[in-house]
């Protein structure tokens, strides 16, 4: 009886062990440059929650800008779109807002052509340019600018 229980337990272990097994990805040989950033500078340039979650470092966005963080410049639309696709795609993602002509990425004034940093900032609070004229409608149309 004891042996039977033991055998059953063993079998169960064999069955469930793989559940906890995990194989990790291999190392990539892409050479990533390293930079030194002072704590003060880092604290002054916090990231937005989504980018924070992705554990980005300065050079992930400030690519090809040398290794002196104090000299980093605005990465412009091209930098944002290197991950975020195209302005047309960003407009399509909020297509439901087009029904009230309230899609900030496809407005009746500008279509999908605005600069990203008309509204979105990485290291300071973003703004909502629509609010400059549509102060009362904007809270009904959309959420807070990420």
């Amino acid at each position, binding site marked *: 009886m004891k042996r039977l229980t033991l055998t059953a337990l063993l079998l169960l272990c064999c069955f469930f062990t793989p559940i906890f097994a995990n194989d990790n990805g291999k190392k990539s040989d892409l050479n*990533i440059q390293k930079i030194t950033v002072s704590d003060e500078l880092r604290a002054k340039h916090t990231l937005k929650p989504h980018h924070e979650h992705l554990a980005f470092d300065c050079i992930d966005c400030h*690519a090809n800008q040398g290794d002196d963080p104090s000299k980093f410049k605005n990465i412009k639309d091209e930098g944002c779109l290197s991950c975020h696709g195209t302005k047309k795609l960003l407009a399509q993602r909020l*297509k439901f807002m087009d*029904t009230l002509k309230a899609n900030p990425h496809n407005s009746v004034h500008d279509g999908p052509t605005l600069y990203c940093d008309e509204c979105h900032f990485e290291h300071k609070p973003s703004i909502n340019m629509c609010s400059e004229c549509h102060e009362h409608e904007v809270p009904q149309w959309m959420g807070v600018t990420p």
Partner: protein
Amino acid sequence: MKISKKLLALIVVISGIVGFFVVLPVHYVLEETSTDRFCGVCHEMDPMVISYQKDIHAGSGAIGVKAKCVDCHLPHDNLAKYVYQKAVNGIVEGYIHFFGDPDSINWVANLKNKEHYVFDNGCMSCHTNILDTTASSQQAQKMHAHYVKLQGSDKELKCVSCHVGVGHAHDMRNQLEYWKPSYKIYENKMLEQKIKSKQEFFKDEYEPTKQEREFLEKKSAKATPSHG
């Protein structure tokens, strides 16, 4: 106790046959409950199915490769985990469908939890060499190196951490808004879009809900004003 060779052979053969007939129905049940048609049976999955159908993963590409719901939304590192997760999902989702209130679920808010219900080993069952290939863009290689670097740390990422619209043509949010608007001001427009979306997808099999029927009747009454 000594077993004769004949008896041993017989046991092996019979075990094989019995094993085969046990595996067969299990495999069949797993297959039958893994089709996208099966997942799409519940009406609350309509926005997910409709947006998925627009995506390259639904097989619209030139090569015709197609991923099913379970290919991304269940773990694939081993069969035991796969079956366990499938059973749990089946029970939980079945219970919610029959005894709960699926229409009260805030699906848009649930998009934030995508890292928990899309499995990297699912993605990588097809995209086997994605982390090593040099055929992808420089930016993709750079970001995939970032992903590899974080593997095993407390900041570990998932494929969908970055690939947010994947599998649903970046259209999931729109469809979910049509079904259940986040902002009140859109309500009427969203209902109209929802009807349009369903008509396009279900074609002749479209059956309007009570709310949709009323909306359509109102609309046609407006279009044909009565002559008094």
